[in-house]
């Protein structure tokens, strides 16, 4: 595979000095630091709220359910987003020897993205939410995100088109994959039907929504938090270490296997639910297959650093990057482990997952960002870093912070797994039937995690100080290189690869045929399936033999591909799109039921729907699941497992991903109305030791009945069987049900006016788990 690119004709013409657009890099870098502080500060605040519910200061805008989305969105899209843009813009200009194509687009990208972040920081605390994790922003902001992403893409590909460097370096491959895939994921998961300027319902509902959400959620981690950072790693590690990259062939293998395999693994977020088995098997097996490709990236970074290992002692940039790569390795080892169904049964919904995510976020993303910032600062402001000892201090405090955080979450997860699953009397009775028994046992760990997170933030503040002292009074400087005037033309004369040559080539043919035969084997029956398996294996063997015999041809084809960015981009898109299509289309086509489903959700009454929207607004899904898994401890604790068709009308689905509180899928009827009212008003008066915040304002605010007609009409469009009620009819139904609840509450000794939001919420909570029996559907999901 190590064929050289055919020697290019010697460049001619006048030498000119090319000045890079480093202004935009500085802007993104400063934004990274600013939003990093904000995102981590919110993280520390909500971590504190888990211990001291009073830390929301009695304000509905600062409750955990509303701020947790702010934290996740801020660190993912604001902190890592800006960091990614800074790194991408800095490295791309240098790797392709071209200034960014458009100053205007660059500035539009920057200010557009910051405006989106500010809009998010305002709307999320106000309770405007789509109710899906990392996809909470409301639809007008979604459109803005998509548009700005397109601006980023245009600016990037335009720059590629003007490149003086014919061949694309591995970092650029990862950037291309990022831009293409994030656009695809973001758009599909944000398809919604607006009911007002600030509210919409997702197009998909129930299990479909769940699948689309985790196809997106899992790959947001893959293509927002991983691939761009890997690209950044491939630029900054060899630069900082002043060492060649360890292995080009490894770059090729790990890039293609990563982008192809990652996209399939989304269903591992839904293991042990009643999701069709084939999807669960797909999620689990592809997650396991992901281990080696992920580690390929880690090892390529690490072994590149190996040649400069002795510098680790003195250079904080290398320290951060070495540890970041190590954490990437740990997180990508833990990920496949957690995707094994039996491990997942213990760990899912517990703090272990939170620990896993933060090992990646704090260790990999945060430390790569720090390493990159410390490397760039002196170069962008032409002044040595103010203090290397302070950078080291940041590193030491940061590592201690991660240690405390991750250790607390592991122990907490183990405690939860052990206690929630413990049974006595030959497995017939739960050992700790009350959820609070477990919660109270992990409270100290929640405190420790805040201390760990706080230390990590303190380390980051040291960076802020160091940065400020470095750039204060410094003169910003833009990088330059000498190029020949006619070099872009030269890049254009590089060996062209037409679309035909791109696709009619051994690597593509073998890959496509292999994948097609694999699908044939997996998704058909009998003889066709057997033939598919045989053909798939044969295809693998032939591909290997062909590669052994003709690896020069493969190598030179790939070299030609690398000088042609469009075919490269198309192939990347095909690789990432395949997995999503195969998983999602059958499920969307099969509607909501599996063949085993013996009960079906009833549509919500208008009041219940209003209550559900309050549930979504308050972000209850951040702590409560609505999914009883097909596991004995779940069934013993919460009741019969959740059928897929029991959430068929749920736009958005609210299965949740974490149980800080108990599951609510069958909450309806478990407690009287007055229990819920008192519990929402002051959770601790009912549940001794609970850490849930009180929601007294739900007893004060009135339900937004006026919005219901347009909401019901949107739901009807989405396929929920509501009659065509007039607004008056809707109002009458709402009031009738609300009065009944209010009257019942009065006999139980609590006075609440029927207009109040709490009435709607109680109506919703009391209907959770209500369904009608059906004859098992004849249509299987597969």
């Amino acid at each position: 595979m190590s064929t050289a690119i055919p020697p290019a004709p010697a460049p001619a013409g006048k030498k000119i000095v090319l000045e890079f657009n480093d202004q935009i890099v500085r802007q993104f870098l400063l934004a990274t630091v600013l939003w990093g502080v904000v995102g981590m500060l919110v993280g520390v605040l909500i971590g504190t709220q888990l211990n001291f519910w009073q830390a929301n200061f009695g304000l509905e805008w600062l409750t955990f359910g509303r701020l947790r989305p702010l934290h996740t969105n801020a660190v993912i899209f604001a902190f890592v987003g800006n960091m990614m843009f800074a790194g991408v813009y800095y490295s791309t200009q240098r790797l392709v020897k071209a200034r960014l194509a458009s100053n205007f687009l660059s500035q539009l990208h920057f200010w557009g993205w910051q405006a989106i972040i500010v809009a998010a920081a305002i709307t999320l605390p106000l309770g405007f939410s789509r109710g899906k994790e990392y996809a909470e922003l409301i639809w007008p902001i979604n459109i803005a995100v998509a548009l700005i992403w397109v601006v980023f893409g245009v600016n990037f590909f335009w720059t590629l088109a003007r490149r003086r460097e014919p061949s694309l370096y591995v970092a650029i491959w990862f950037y291309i994959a990022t831009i293409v895939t994030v656009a695809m994921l973001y758009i599909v998961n944000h398809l919604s039907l607006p009911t007002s300027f600030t509210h919409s319902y997702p197009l998909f509902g129930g299990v479909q929504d769940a699948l689309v959400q985790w196809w997106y959620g899992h790959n947001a981690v893959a293509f927002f938090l991983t691939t761009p950072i890997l690209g950044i790693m491939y630029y900054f590690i060899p630069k900082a270490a002043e060492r060649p990259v360890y292995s080009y062939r490894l770059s090729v293998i790990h890039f293609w296997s990563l982008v192809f395999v990652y996209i399939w693994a989304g269903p591992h977020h839904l293991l042990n639910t009643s999701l069709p088995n084939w999807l669960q098997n797909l999620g689990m097996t592809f997650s396991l297959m992901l281990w080696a490709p992920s580690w390929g990236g880690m090892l390529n970074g690490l072994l590149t650093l190996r040649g400069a290992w002795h510098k680790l002692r003195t250079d904080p940039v290398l320290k951060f990057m070495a540890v970041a790569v190590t954490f990437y390795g740990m997180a990508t080892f833990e990920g496949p482990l957690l995707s094994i169904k039996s491990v997942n049964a213990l760990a899912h919904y517990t703090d272990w997952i939170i620990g896993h995510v933060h090992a990646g976020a704090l260790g990999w993303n945060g430390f790569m960002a720090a390493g990159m910032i410390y490397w760039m600062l002196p170069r962008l402001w032409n002044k040595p870093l103010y203090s290397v000892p302070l950078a080291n201090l940041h590193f030491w405090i940061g590592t201690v912070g991660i240690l405390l955080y991750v250790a607390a979450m592991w122990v907490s997860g183990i405690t939860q797994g052990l206690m929630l699953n413990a049974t006595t009397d030959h497995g017939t009775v739960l050992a700790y039937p009350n959820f609070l028994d477990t919660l109270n046992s992990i409270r100290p760990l929640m405190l420790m995690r805040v201390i760990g997170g706080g230390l990590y933030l303190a380390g980051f503040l040291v960076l802020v100080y160091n940065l400020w002292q470095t750039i204060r009074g410094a003169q910003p400087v833009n990088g330059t290189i000498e190029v020949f005037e006619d070099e872009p033309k030269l890049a254009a004369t590089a060996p062209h690869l037409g679309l035909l040559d791109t696709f009619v080539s051994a690597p593509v043919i073998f890959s496509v045929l292999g994948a097609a035969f694999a699908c044939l084997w997996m998704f058909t029956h009998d003889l066709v399936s057997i033939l598919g398996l045989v053909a798939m294996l044969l295809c693998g063997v032939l591909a290997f033999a062909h590669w052994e015999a003709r690896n020069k041809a493969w190598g030179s084809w790939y070299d030609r591909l690398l000088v042609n960015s469009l075919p490269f981009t198309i192939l990347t898109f095909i690789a990432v799109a395949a997995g999503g299509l195969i998983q999602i289309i059958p499920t969307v086509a099969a509607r909501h039921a599996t063949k085993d489903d013996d009960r079906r959700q009833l549509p919500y009454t208008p009041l219940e729907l209003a209550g559900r929207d309050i549930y979504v607004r308050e972000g209850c899904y951040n702590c409560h699941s609505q999914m009883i898994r097909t596991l004995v401890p779940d069934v013993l604790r919460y009741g019969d497992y959740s059928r897929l068709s029991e959430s068929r009308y749920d736009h958005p689905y609210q299965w949740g991903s974490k149980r800080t509180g108990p599951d609510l899928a069958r909450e309806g009827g478990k407690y009287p109305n007055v229990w819920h009212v008192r519990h929402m008003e002051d959770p601790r008066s009912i549940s001794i030791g609970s850490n849930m915040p009180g929601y007294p304002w739900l007893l004060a605010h009135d339900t937004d009945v006026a919005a219901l007609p347009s909401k019901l009409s949107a739901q009807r469009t989405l396929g929920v069987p509501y009659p065509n009620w007039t607004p008056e009819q809707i109002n009458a139904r709402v009031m009738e049900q609300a009065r009944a609840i209010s009257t019942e509450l009065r006999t139980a000794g609590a006075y609440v006016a029927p207009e109040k939001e709490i009435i709607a919420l109680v109506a919703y909570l009391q209907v959770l788990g209500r369904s009608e029996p059906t004859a098992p559907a004849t249509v299987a999901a597969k």
Partner: protein
Amino acid sequence: MSAPLSHEPPSRDSVTTIRSDGSRPFVYPADAHGRFATARQFSAYALIAFYLSLPWIKVNGYPAVFLDVANRRFHLFGITLAAQDLWLLFFVITGLGFSLFFITSLLGRIWCGWACPQTVFLDHVYRRIERWVEGDAVERRALQAAPMSANKFFKLTLKHGLYVLVSAIITHLFLAYYVSLPEVWGMVRAAPAEHWSAFAFIFVATFGLYFNFAWFREQLCIVICPYGRIQSALIDDHSLVIGYDATRGEPRGKVGTTGVGDCIACNRCVQVCPTGIDIRQGLQMECIGCTACIDACDDIMTKLKRPAGLIRYDSQKAFTGGRTRWLRPRTFLYGLLLLVGASVATWALSTVRPANFGVTRMTGGPYVIDAGSVRNQFLVRIVNKRNEPARFLVRLEDVPKTVRKIGFEEVLEVGPLGEVVQPLVLQQARGAYTGPFHFEVRVEDAAGRFHLERAVEFLGPEARLLREEEEEKHRHERERH
């Protein structure tokens, strides 16, 4: 005495144990003898003895370490913890982590070379078996290269047989940490089908250990283990590392040549290295700090009547002519953090009582209103973590006199390691009820050694509503008369 290497000469560009075709050259490190080898041997045996003896030694009637997952009771050196106390494990993990940080900042990768189970068992058990059966490095390589013969077959069988045996012993003792020795012994004597999950664990873990120690070896440290990398990043210019004194050693040359340094390029340091590096190329990712090269070089230097320590434990600062500073800001920072952590851990451990106690509401409504009263119902759960019966006094504080405590036992007896769940019902007459109030449930050890409290709220209807209801009833009655 100089044996040829089993691998390419180490370079800075690639890992010695990965050949250019991706295959792995098996490293046959030569024996190194010296003061470090001896010291490491003693410390390793002490550690192995410690690890393996824990399930045998009994403290307070339980093995020194017995993590009884099945019953959710954890016995650690005489202290018994319940599932509710598992959070203390946090201090164990972070304590180990902190110590690792602290020690690494001072002494470098001392953990890897001296205390890590991978090194301890590999160097002091498995390599010793190998040495005993097959001879030294030269003989081992010769045996490997030789065609199969009765002698070779016998030696290989013996070696691998012993590997498997030792692996199985380690696995069984490891299992004993979780289920206790008698239980393990019972399982060993019974048929595998009776407890096949334990059997599968033993089988898989034994195979895993065997594979790791027989073949995988240094690959674990180089490719898999994250701690080595983190430790490398925690080293600074003043941390001790194993290094080569280039100022003294360079340029290398034969004995008797003029103008050369002390290093005679005998390559002994490379031959003894278990990870296949050349320490003279500086600090490297693969170095686990096993000290073999120090002993090897000291041996040569002593024979040449030159001072020892051409390869030695020293800091980067000292190797470049400076002085190692032991007390650095970092030492103080870690020291301080360690002190804070230790204090918090001690305090946390001191808050652990020999009992746990919780109050939860009974299922159903938050309160019950009947004809004459308002009532709240709770369950009090007490866990006795001692291995003997214990008596507890349950008291209620701040409960108004008008409240009746029903079915409420002041004294509760809980069996050894037992749990008791006891209802607690509070009732207040409608007339006396004026609204919710807070009170405290307090559990005291009968011997007065400790007490635990929980703040609880007595709930009821809005007093106004109850009053209105009463008045309405009276009015009805008046109207009827």
